């Protein structure tokens, strides 16, 4: 009975919060624009879902430069959530990406519970929006970090308030700049989250020793890329053990082996961020690599390896 599978190829489909995704490889918010740029390199219809750049309650011009800095196997960014705001998003961007025919997750970022609720209300029922990712963690804009990522009760409050108004799956995205990521995830779950995604960036800094000042205009920025992968993987492993909703793994995924590590840690799907920047073909190459690996290991369904590296005590 294995033959037919091998002939048709392994199944890469997964289910997240009631949504069927044709495969578990998604883009990470803020690292893929709204897809247009990468559509010039490969056929976006191959990806599991497209997670777009954060939308905030009002248009934001973003931070003054310098916005990015390279670090060992990573990068810092302090883009400052540049985006045209929800109205422009709905009218000009969404119709365009909707026409791609792939699931679209909208990442929303705000400074108060009410703003999050408003954004969910405004965007979650729009045609083309498959899920809302609640960015509870942006470290580059004022009080964002202190307010929404630190305390489990703040996470719970935001998620509970959004849940009733959100007409599609609600997926809080957690910050790694915390003592206890599992507590945040549990708070999100009990407040009604349909899944959680993690990690957002670690707060970091670089100093320009020639100019004797921080490299970034914003002083600090968010660290991402391969450098953070071990921290992200550990947090995903911890959170998978702490909640029973699906976990989306993010952080430093650059090749199919990395994606496999997260799936084996128990992530139901993964998001690819910074890797798109240094390799525009990152997502399709990861998909090819996963498929080849499954085939070579005679695994008919990717779901068989989700959590495969978990050692239960």
């Amino acid at each position, binding site marked *: 009975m294995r033959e037919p599978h091998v002939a048709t190829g392994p199944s890469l489909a997964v289910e997240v919060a009631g949504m069927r995704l044709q495969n578990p490889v998604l883009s990470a918010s*803020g*690292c*893929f*624009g709204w897809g*247009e*740029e*990468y559509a*010039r*390199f490969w056929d976006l219809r191959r990806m599991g879902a497209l997670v777009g*750049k954060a939308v905030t309650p009002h248009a934001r*011009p*973003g931070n*003054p*430069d*310098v*916005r*990015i*800095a*390279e*670090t*060992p*196997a*990573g*990068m810092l*960014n302090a*883009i400052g959530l*540049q985006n045209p705001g929800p109205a422009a998003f709905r009218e000009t961007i969404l119709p365009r990406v909707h026409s791609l025919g792939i699931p679209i997750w909208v990442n929303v970022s705000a400074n108060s519970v009410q703003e999050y609720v408003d954004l969910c209300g405004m965007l979650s029922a729009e045609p083309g929006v498959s899920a809302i990712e609640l960015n509870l963690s942006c470290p580059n804009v004022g009080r964002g970090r202190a307010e929404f990522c630190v305390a489990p009760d703040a996470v719970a409050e935001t998620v509970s308030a959004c849940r009733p108004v959100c007409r599609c799956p609600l997926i809080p995205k957690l910050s790694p700049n915390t003592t206890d990521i599992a507590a945040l995830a549990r708070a999100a779950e009990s407040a009604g989250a349909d899944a959680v995604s993690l990690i957002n960036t670690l707060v970091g800094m670089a100093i320009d020793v020639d100019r004797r000042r921080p490299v970034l205009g914003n002083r600090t920025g968010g660290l991402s*890329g*391969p*450098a953070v992968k071990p921290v992200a993987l550990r947090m995903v492993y911890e959170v998978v053990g702490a909640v029973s909703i699906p976990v989306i793994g993010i952080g430093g995924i*650059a090749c199919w082996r990395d994606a496999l590590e997260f799936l084996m840690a128990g992530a139901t799907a993964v998001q690819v961020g*910074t890797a*798109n*920047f*240094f*390799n*525009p*073909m990152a997502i399709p190459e990861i998909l090819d690599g996963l498929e080849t690996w499954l085939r070579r290991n005679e695994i008919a369904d990717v779901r068989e390896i989700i959590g495969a590296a978990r050692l239960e005590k």
Partner: protein
Amino acid sequence: MIPILEAEVLDHYEVAPEHFVLTLDAPPIAEQARPGQFVMLRALDAWDPLLPRAFSVFHADSEGGTLSVLYRVVGRGTGRLRGHEPGMYVRAWGPLGNQFRLPEGERVVLVGGGVGVPPLVFWAERLAALAVPMEIVALIGAQRGELLVGLEQLKRARVTFRCATDDGSAGHRGYVTDLLPRTLEGKRATVYACGPMPMLRAVARITEATETPTELALEAPMACGVGACLGCTIPRRGGGYARVCSDGPVFPARDVDWSLMP
């Protein structure tokens, strides 16, 4: 679609101290490349340095399928690039960004400093090859005479050029922009400039006063090079930010908000 390939290094030689010309076998990029555009290059298989680096197209031979860039070894990115001998491969994608627009007026003035010269040489070559004859003057600056690059190519394209060096070891002693006001006298000109930010600022100041149409090829720290990361922005006159990689790298000088530039 934008070509992305593992491109073989065909040639890699020093043109001036710490300045190298790297030639790649990259037919699809070479064919599409236009003056002002750039390519992203990255060593295969290592995550440090992580990000690709942008290099202006210095020469593109669409028949031979080769693409050349001229770069200076500055830091870890270019240091790593320099280790690529012929026969080795780099990942290359492009061409990216917009291109120089055709000139207005009777005279074209190119102002290049340091490794800002390469895109202007490519532009000079393409302009010189046009059916319409036009007067092209290049002003080329560097720290020292031995660091002046692209002169041979300009000669071959029969482009008049004048040089400036910080120490006076070749041409004018001082800034290349010192030569600009006099060059603009007389005929109506269009200016194209690429080089360090203080040079570009000076060019913009001079040509704004003379109302000379001016295009600047800018640089900014880049992550993606394709418009996705919003990392490479410059302040736009009138508000907001423009991406150097995809709204540029070529901008009319008047579109830049110089008061907010670093």
